[in-house]
């Protein structure tokens, strides 16, 4: 299954919303434990009557989706599919808190209504009056990948010609506190661009939304094409990862010799990064390697940011130096392999290619 990426957009801790030039000016953050999105002026995209109930993630999702469709010159997508690991947690926390604070009495319904995981996909549909296929996947580090898989299948089942797929998650004060107590983040603040230098436990928390307009048809301004992502759950050892990698590449009739750039989900957590370094040593020695979580932070749907980065790198044929782990690519970048894992549970591969 092959589809074309005809429009992209991301709202992230980088200046990605108006994405033309962000590759030239990546933002580094000093002494931080988490990265938050650089947000657009929402009122330019969402009318205030509609925006008044929306939490931050809904606004970022709707804005990014609209901008993505503009980018692809698509007015009415044949499907809207989102992936989110934790969904609308700000409103979930708000409603949950109100249950206890108000002892189950006189609760405002709005945060409950807006807490459901499908709120963003539904809000996009409502904004566009789009009655077509609509779904939401909520599976940790597979959330975006499942949305994409569904979208690719739809494009090949024919009813849809242009579809919208996105991955998004938000970070709230409480979700940071809880995940920090769970030991996911570095205990002392770091400089984001030096994320890989600390060599200790934990990563840098992040958030973001990234949307893609996909089609079976190539257009003049298509960014890249892509095939079905591969997902594998709880590999038992590194050789299972290697096996999955070779199966993935051979499915698309590729070998590592075809890969011009590898983008890895390195996140600074020494234990989790070990797998990536092993693969670099044993398989990616002669391939330029890049990484991205120092730009967007770690979150369940961060792979959507990686796909966004890859699509842009292929179209622009440039990659910010701060994203390169070793050497920058010298040849034309035709095929990018992305490998990401979330806490060594949800592992995924993507292949993004020039078209």
């Amino acid at each position, binding site marked *: 299954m092959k589809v074309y990426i005809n429009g992209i957009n991301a709202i992230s801790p980088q200046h990605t919303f108006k994405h033309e030039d962000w590759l030239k000016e990546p933002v580094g953050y000093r002494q931080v434990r988490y990265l938050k999105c650089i947000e657009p002026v929402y009122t330019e995209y969402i009318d205030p009557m509609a925006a008044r109930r929306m939490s931050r993630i809904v606004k970022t999702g709707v804005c990014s989706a609209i901008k993505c469709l503009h980018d692809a010159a698509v007015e009415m997508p044949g499907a809207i599919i989102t992936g989110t690991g934790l969904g609308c947690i700000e409103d979930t926390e708000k409603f*949950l808190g109100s249950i206890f604070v108000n*002892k189950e009495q006189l609760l405002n319904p709005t945060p409950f209504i807006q807490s459901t995981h499908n709120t963003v996909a539904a809000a996009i*549909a*409502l904004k566009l009056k789009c009655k*077509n296929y609509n779904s939401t996947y909520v599976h940790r580090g597979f959330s975006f990948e499942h949305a994409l898989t569904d979208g690719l*299948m739809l494009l090949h089942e024919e009813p849809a010609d242009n579809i919208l797929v996105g991955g998004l998650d938000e970070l709230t004060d409480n979700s940071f506190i809880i995940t920090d107590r769970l030991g996911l983040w570095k205990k002392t603040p770091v400089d984001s661009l030096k994320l890989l230098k600390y060599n200790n436990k934990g990563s840098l928390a992040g958030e973001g939304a990234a949307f893609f307009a996909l089609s079976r048809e190539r257009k003049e301004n298509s960014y890249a094409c892509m095939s*079905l992502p591969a997902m594998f*759950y*709880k590999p038992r050892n590194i050789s299972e990862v290697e096996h999955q990698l070779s199966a993935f590449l051979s499915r698309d009739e590729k070998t590592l010799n075809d890969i011009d750039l590898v983008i890895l989900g390195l996140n600074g957590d020494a234990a989790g990064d070990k797998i990536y370094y092993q693969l670099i040593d044993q398989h990616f020695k002669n391939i330029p390697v890049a990484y991205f979580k120092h730009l967007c932070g770690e979150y369940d749907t961060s792979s959507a940011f990686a796909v966004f980065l890859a699509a842009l790198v292929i179209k622009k044929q440039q990659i910010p130096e701060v994203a390169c782990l070793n050497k920058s690519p010298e040849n034309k970048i035709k095929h990018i392999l992305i490998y990401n894992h979330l806490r060594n*549970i949800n592992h995924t591969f993507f292949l993004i290619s020039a078209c």
Partner: protein
Amino acid sequence: MPEKVFITGVGIISSIGKGIDETIDSLKNSRSGIGVITLLETAYKNELPAAEVKATHEDLMEIAGIKDKRPYSRTALLGIIAARQALRHAFIDDIAAYRTGLISATTVGGMDKSEVFYRPFIENKRHGRLRDIITHDCGDSTETIADYTGIRDYVSTVSTACSSSANALLLGARLIKNGLLQRVLVGGVDALTLFTINGFNSLMILDKNPCRPFDEERNGLNLGEGAGFLMLEAESIAEKEKKSVLCEISGYGNACDAFHQTASSPEGDGAYLSMKKALDTARLEPSMIDYINAHGTGTKNNDLSEGKAIERLFGNTPPPCSSTKAYTGHTLGAAGAVEAVFCVLAIQNGIIYPNLRFQKQMSELSFSPVVALQNRKPLKHIMSNSFGFGGNNTSLIFSAI
């Protein structure tokens, strides 16, 4: 030609039964599971009826045969119980024999545990036991079921409000048709929580009495809890393994009402479209449907909108129709799968379920639901509707072989 998708096993736990036999017995004998809340600690215990699975955490651990110390949410336990039944019912013992997936659906995941965590946490951010919050996200219950059953090839979770598990079935069928999986265990699960009972109460759509779907005097829904799972297998695998097949998933349709965040459109646009798409994928005419298992929550808005959509598609004399939510309450993310199991059992047993407590014809509709159990053989094609907030509407069609 894409493969047909067969259902070879089902599993269910809800307020009307902890397995297929109890369930079918309750369905046949008009035994509703809606009653006084006895397990959930809520201020509405004596005010709002609900359809609880009358089993404590320990009871569920025992039914599931779990002894380890991993934290299990009520959601995960209900899911495991139904999933295990479905695998046994389908006589599947070697998970690795074929490329097998698991797709579960839920709306609030491990919220039952999150509530335990959150109460002390809002007082002091260092309080709350972490083992009560790590099961919060929707993926947790699915991965717990995956680990329990040994399914690893494809593990996914859908959440589209009240149509969640109907979309899990839809996705499972499509994954098989697209050749990505050979077998897939699909379903959904939700436990009754303070979050949902207070949420729906804040929307003022909970009936203080047992619900009356499609009744002129209907006054809202009752919440329920439970899990339903169904084993889907590609036709070629079922044939090769000489499986006894329960029925086929022949049609599915997903559409968005795109009308309002919570309310359905007056003419039921989304509902009409999802039903129409389901008929189209199954290549059936409306007249070929023998029974509609409606979404039928019992709210003023849903039943009117769904009823109007049914009239639009099926005319003024639609096929027999009923909502089984008068038995189970609205099990939210589990509803689509629980009702899919009911549809499979209907085909198996040649019966159409009554719409309990129906008395008065809705003034806006030309038809009324089935009021008594009907024996009808053969039941060839059944449609099941699941509609959710945000306008996420999905219809499925089950066909006898």
